[in-house]
């Protein structure tokens, strides 16, 4: 790491970034506010703070390279370990979601496809590889990683994807292999994960030249735990009728818990957000002007249609109040309070929804249906994500049979806007809306 780079980074962190972003923001503000949608409630004021946090995170990443070790990390990885070694962490999945939301996903995917990556492969991975090959991104510039840190608790795909990056950049890949919980997590599974964490510590010590600071690690774990618990509280506010925010808000609001977990900025942000949401609850302010039906979302967001779907459902006074996806960063966090942080991490990160069997998913959904008083379910069958999507057809059937909740499956994708058919989605959703209005049970 160079001293000049370190000085530049700390200067930008303390002074430069805020100044530059202020000027940049002033220039952008000239566009003026967009027309309010009468079907939607007032915008969350905290969102402006969040925007600054996201912008700052990506902005600062440009100065991190050379000043500190940079790691590319999967969303389900125990980042606490890296933070204890002073890594700047970048989340390619989050970046791919941003590319998708900016409707740049297909364009960047095509770069990867030209290099031989089949269009059937995960679009997060294709966006990331496309970005790696071309530098294309809507966020300015991503720092190249010095190391990769991957955990297979969300899919095996991240393993193949990170292996590819390791090959192209010829950099180390540290992988935490989390056995799939076909039934229950066993002691052998936990021991395996804990052993890998200890091995990772050794590898990180070697790589960073720094000694592992256990106390610092414990402090970061506590911060991470507190942040995730706050995120859970954020989601819990949506149990209120009317819900103070929508799941489309939550898809964006989850960024700190995903990407900045373990840092004070994430915890501080959720404290601000919760205060606003609790005030809304007290004042009876809903995310929709008139919330008549409450829905649940299954799977990752269709990032490139977030706005359109938000408006479409609002038109029908239907609000998404819960998602299996957004609670992934809070639902297992109780285990983080384990006296042994390594065991806490093993339990927390192994029990994520995608690392558990489909009975677990069904049970989680049942609980959500009851707790959030859900009227209907929208299932996003995401071509990119097999662990999330394979099994959804049966899930649809079972949710109706067992919980009497109608649902609809929309075939789409997370970041590749080419995998979208207006016609197909419109037809299915119309049937779904009718079923919900008639209180019928047979949806598309």
């Amino acid at each position: 790491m160079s001293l000049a780079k370190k000085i530049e980074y700390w200067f930008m962190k303390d002074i430069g970034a805020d100044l530059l972003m202020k000027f940049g923001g002033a220039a952008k503000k000239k566009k003026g506010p967009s027309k309010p949608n009468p079907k939607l409630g007032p915008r969350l004021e905290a969102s402006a703070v969040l925007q600054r946090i996201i912008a700052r995170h990506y902005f600062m990443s440009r100065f991190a390279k050379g000043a500190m070790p940079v790691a590319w990390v999967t969303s389900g990885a125990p980042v606490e370990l890296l933070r204890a070694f002073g890594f700047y962490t970048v989340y390619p999945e989050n970046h791919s979601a941003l590319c998708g939301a900016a409707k740049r996903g297909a364009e960047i995917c095509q770069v990867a496809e030209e290099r031989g990556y089949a269009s059937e492969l995960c679009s997060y991975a294709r966006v990331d590889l496309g970005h790696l090959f071309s530098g294309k991104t809507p966020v300015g510039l991503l720092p190249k990683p010095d190391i990769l840190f991957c955990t297979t608790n969300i899919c095996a795909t991240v393993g193949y994807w990170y292996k590819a990056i390791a090959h192209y950049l010829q950099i180390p890949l540290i992988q935490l292999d989390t056995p799939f919980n076909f039934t229950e997590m066993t002691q052998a599974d936990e021991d395996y994960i804990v052993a890998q964490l200890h091995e990772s510590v050794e590898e990180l010590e070697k790589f960073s030249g720094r000694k592992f600071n256990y106390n610092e690690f414990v402090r970061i774990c506590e911060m991470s735990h507190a942040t995730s618990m706050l995120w859970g509280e954020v989601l819990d506010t949506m149990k209120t009728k009317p819900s103070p925010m929508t799941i489309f808000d939550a898809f964006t609001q989850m960024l700190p818990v995903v990407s900045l977990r373990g840092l004070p900025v994430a915890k501080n942000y959720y404290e601000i957000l919760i205060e606003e949401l609790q005030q809304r609850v007290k004042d009876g302010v809903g995310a929709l002007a008139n919330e008549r039906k409450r829905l649940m979302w299954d799977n990752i967001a269709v990032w490139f249609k977030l706005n359109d779907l938000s408006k479409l459902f609002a038109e029908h006074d239907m609000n998404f109040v819960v998602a299996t996806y957004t609670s992934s960063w809070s639902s297992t966090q109780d285990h983080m309070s384990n006296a042994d942080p390594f065991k806490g991490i093993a339990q927390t990160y192994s029990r994520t929804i995608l690392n558990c069997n489909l009975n677990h998913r069904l049970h989680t959904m049942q609980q959500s249906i009851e707790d959030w008083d859900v009227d209907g379910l929208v299932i996003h069958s995401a071509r990119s994500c097999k662990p999330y999507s394979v099994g959804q057809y049966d899930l649809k059937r079972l949710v109706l049979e067992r919980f009497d909740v109608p649902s609809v499956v929309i075939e789409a994708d997370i970041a590749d806007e080419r995998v979208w058919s207006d016609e197909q989605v419109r037809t299915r959703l119309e049937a779904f809306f009718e079923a919900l209005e008639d209180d019928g049970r047979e949806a598309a």
Partner: protein
Amino acid sequence: MAEKTASRGAYITEKKQAGLRPVGVFPAQYPKEILWALGILPVEIWDPPLDISTAGAHLQPYVCSIVQSGLELILNGGAEEMEAFLFPHTCDSVQNLATVVNDYIDLNKPCYFFFHPKAPYRQSSRDYYYNQLKRLAKELEPQFGPMDAEKLKTAVAQGAKVAELLRQIYMLRAQNRLACSAVEFYKTIRLGEYLLPEDFIPVLEDFMLGAGGQGPSGPAVVLSGVLPNPPEILQTLDEMDVRIGNDDLLACSRRMIAPPVHDDDPLMQMTKAYFGLPPCSTKNSPTDERLDYLQVISERSGAKGIIFNMVKFCETELFDIPQLEEALKKRGVPILVVDTEINQGFSGQLATRIEAFIEMLG
């Protein structure tokens, strides 16, 4: 040679009558010695020749044809004789198929799961694999047990013998001392997907004796991918007198050619053998390892090029291909990548591409 052996259905019936208990096993890596020792007849489900109809109600069209046809077999009653199913953790699709079958489809048959650690390997991977072997045995025991230590030793010795014979056969082929067609070769090798070792070993010995001699005189290639399917790909190569010098197929060498190892503890011997298998995408082996392996088997078998036979939607393989393709081209190794669906025949266009590739190799 393969014709001498009873068909899969007849064999299962015969063994059932003899007291063996068939278990359907999905792709790809699993410790068959444990099953043999428990009196189980493992019957692998790779590419049953079925059209997909009922499976489509459970699986999206973007799931590969191996997983689709496996589920189709279960749903249409083709796996009725199986007393249970075993799902190794091969990829996200097989993983979810396992839980769909176990949790969502009312089969009334036990389902078992075998998770093998993924590379990059460390000491913890070896320890975990060893523990997984114990765990699988323990899970199977209530239905099929108890495990007899002597039977396990025998099964491990038989597994080592099978691997040794397969290694010899592969070596003979690499040296062009195996006078048989690609169709015949894979028909024989794949009998191991359901034959017990006591029946498979003599088949392999007979095959080796009977097929001695000069192989095809055309250029040699390495065949990579998941399966030697559709069969037309092998027929096309045979018709062009091409020798498959070696393969890098998931269903074949990648899980068959274990190195000779020994340990007094049979489970430790199995562990050592497993970690000595060739690199594999489903184990997330590093690209460079697979690359070097492909180059070595190409050189040792005199192969002039590599054919990658991809199954559509197979993520494990599709992620590796661009890196392998790029690096192999840089090393001057000609390659051809073809996309197929199992049991869906072979288009004229594909045949033309293979012919052109072989002609190019000279």
